[in-house]
């Protein structure tokens, strides 16, 4: 018996539609979130992640509605991120049908938010999304904000450690250097994060070809997240799982 490595399609959502761009720019429409969620569920996705990249106050109702509709039709775990600023926001999402939430900017602005959410709902609901890039910091990686456009002035590995000590249950490590390039995951960054993390790590950013997924897992990822390669049909989840099985990794068939 072995815990399966998870394959997680990520749906970036704006205005109730799935969108995709390179390095968070040049967004194009990639479909209806509920329909795509259903399709990925049927294809064997192990979890789904929605990131509300508009994350404006006005759009919270749209997001909740989308989560509700998805959770009613897709019976695999659902993580929702974007615009979460309080434990009450988390409560709304969980009640709408989310199983986990991911936080990013709001936790950087006020790290105590991690404790507040974790104390109330447990660490298993909370994913710390870290948009990191290579930089001249202690570990060689720094945290960015605004979709990778600005430095947050924090060392990425130090932030991961702080997040875990405050109560996050999982790390979503997104390489802002690799995101959208389809040139493979940042393996060095994954190895470095694995060395300091006592919670599961989801690798994100850079998936392009089949072998990239196994490389990320070998570097220490417990799950692998990808968006455009799935949305635009370059790869299917089933292709990825077959490749991983062939390489000897435990997967859910």
């Amino acid at each position: 018996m072995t815990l399966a490595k998870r394959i997680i399609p990520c749906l970036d959502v704006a205005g109730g539609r799935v969108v995709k761009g390179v390095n968070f720019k040049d967004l194009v429409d990639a479909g209806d979130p509920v329909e795509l969620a259903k399709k990925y569920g049927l294809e064997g996705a192990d979890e789904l992640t929605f990131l509300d990249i508009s994350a404006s106050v006005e759009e919270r109702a749209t997001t909740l509605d989308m989560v509700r509709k998805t959770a009613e039709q897709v019976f695999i775990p659902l993580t929702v991120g974007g615009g979460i600023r309080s434990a009450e926001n988390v409560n709304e999402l969980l009640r709408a049908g989310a199983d986990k939430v991911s936080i990013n900017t709001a936790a950087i602005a006020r790290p105590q938010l991690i404790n507040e959410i974790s104390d109330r709902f447990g660490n298993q609901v909370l994913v710390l999304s870290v948009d990191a890039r290579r930089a001249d910091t202690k570990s060689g990686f720094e945290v960015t904000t605004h979709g990778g456009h600005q430095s947050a002035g924090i060392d990425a590995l130090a932030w991961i450690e702080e997040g875990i000590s405050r109560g996050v249950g999982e790390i979503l490590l997104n390489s802002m250097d690799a995101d959208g390039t389809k040139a493979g995951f940042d393996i060095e960054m994954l190895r470095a994060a694995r060395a300091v993390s006592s919670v599961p790590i989801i690798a994100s950013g850079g998936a392009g070809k089949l072998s990239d997924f196994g490389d990320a897992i070998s570097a220490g990822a417990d799950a692998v997240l990808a968006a455009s390669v799935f949305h635009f049909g370059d790869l299917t989840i089933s292709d990825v799982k077959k490749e991983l099985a062939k390489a000897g990794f435990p997967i859910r068939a």
Partner: protein
Amino acid sequence: MIAILDYGSGNLRSAQRAFELAHSQVVVTNDPKICEEAQGLVVPGVGAFAACMDQLIGVGGREIIAARVAKERPIFGICVGMQVLFDSSNEKKNCDGVGVLQGEVDLINAPLLPHMGWNNVSAPSGSKLFQGVEDEMFYFVHSYAAKTKVPNALNTTCEYGEEFIAAVERDYVVATQFHPEKSGDAGAKLISNWVASL
């Protein structure tokens, strides 16, 4: 009718929809009368044990469960909803559970926690709950679990760092540490097995 106990914990909507695939009448409620008299009562649960117990007590959940036990009416505990059925848990602090299942809930000894994701289980022969899905994977997300087999019950185990109890079937009490409502087709089959047994 199947009642899903609403005590402010758990992904109630997903649970409701998943049970609706197997039964035409599923309600989310904490009305004591409905909960005590429903054909089946589902006790969900997400979060820390002590917080869940507080909330459960707050809606009279202990009394509801005791009333069903007295009449031997089916109960299905899920995740922390399974854990609260045990005698106690030592998550954060020692805390009493409902005590329907004998044993205590303890931290899993594994290098990486939470135990998060899809894992196999080992179901004993004769399990009605796992009929047809003995070799499937189910979705777990937890750091604590019961580790001692419940006496006079069918115990299904899982291994992550060490062996722990993934599911219990004892007469009218059924419980799973994993989330059947989040376990895709395998979970749906398991839920329909339980509904068929009511």
